[in-house]
């Protein structure tokens, strides 16, 4: 199945300038599996989204078809064919 990953401007340098990446995943793949694929294809991007224990970074949000993954099953959230995963850094800090 095909998934679209939407990348914020501040991270596009790690994706050759792309604002969207289209990834092919097996059916019923999870967000974790998407990020595992990303670790192979775009490691500089993936390590900004997860630490080396594969834990999602605290101030990075992953909206799966409009719902932040932590309101679903977190990294175990199942993705559907055609899903859009939008990376949104938290608005925080001073």
């Amino acid at each position, binding site marked *: 199945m095909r998934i679209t990953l939407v990348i914020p401007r501040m991270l596009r340098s790690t994706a050759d300038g792309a604002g969207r990446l289209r990834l092919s995943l097996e059916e019923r793949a999870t967000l974790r599996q998407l990020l595992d694929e990303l670790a192979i294809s775009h490691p500089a991007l993936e390590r900004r989204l997860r*630490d080396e224990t594969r834990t999602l970074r605290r101030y990075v949000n992953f909206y799966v078809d409009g719902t932040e993954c932590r309101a679903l099953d977190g990294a175990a959230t199942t993705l559907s064919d055609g899903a859009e995963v939008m990376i949104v850094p938290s608005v925080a800090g001073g």
Partner: protein
Amino acid sequence: MSSSVLLMIGTRKGLWLARRNGDGGGWQVTGPQLPMTEVYAVAVDTRSAPRLLAGTESPHFGPTLVTSDDLGHSWQEPDHAPIAFPADTGTALRRVWQIVPGPVSEPEVIYAGTQPSALFRSEDGGSNYELVRGLWDHPHRAEWFPGAGGQAVHTILPDPREPSRVLVGMSTGGVYRTVDGGSEWNPANSGIRAYFMPEDEYPEFGQCVHKMARNTSAPDRIYLQNHHGVYRSDDGADTWESIAEGLPADFGFPIGVDPTDPDTVYTFPLVADAHRFPPEGSCRIYRSRDAGRSWEGMGEGLPGEGFWSAVMRDALCLDDADPAGVYFGSRSGEVYASSDRGESWTLVAEHLPDVLSLRAAVV
């Protein structure tokens, strides 16, 4: 072309560079670079063509380590994480606290100290690092605990004579030493007080060392600013003796030694753990020229009153000129420099974010 001094200024919101040409002109300050990252560790590696290194931490996107081979005009990092804990540790890097080039005899070796407390070693000039297992697997590790800044290896002192000998300092945990290249580590805290311990105030380990400094021409002499207490060792950290007498307070974070004179040492006292301000609100670097037997406050050119800021553990440094320039930066964003061994000070920069780390070198 005359040489110039490059000063790296790591702050809570990025990196600034200050440069002074050898013609005696003023400082040219540029920045921010690496914006909105906390720059706790910087290094200037001058063992061959100058390389700048910076440990950065983005609140959003985590820590990393970047290098520059063009004096800060551009920065590089590998796609993969340059420093990462191996999977079997179940641990993630929180912050790079220290970056230290190895001895001259190992020109490609770079050490990094991290939070959580660990030592990493690079053998390719700082692109790839490996965890030093001997320290990570130390049986004491379960008993190290975090200070207010976190549990971190924040000081690394490779022995310039013998690459297999390395000292590290951590909060808390204290001083540890290896003599076999990192396989075995032993605590080296004899004489260092841990006043916060309810019973034994001189434990084998568990001290909260804030910073150590060593002059490479006299490597057995090491100075140490502790969480209360200032010490000197003359035997390579086998034993420590107090050199706090003569200081207005024995609390503080940084300590630096003159690379051209192992008897000349600098510190920035704060009143106490529970009162972390310069004594009487006066900005004073304290200097000893006799290895800590006596101290004098150096304040010409510094704010004499109303200075309620502080100097972080890596925000005091010396360069490799002769005489060595002395630098410090404050949590209130000022950076001062002295080119006459602390006798007088000039303002390099002000109104910066909190200064976390400074390193300077002739380039």
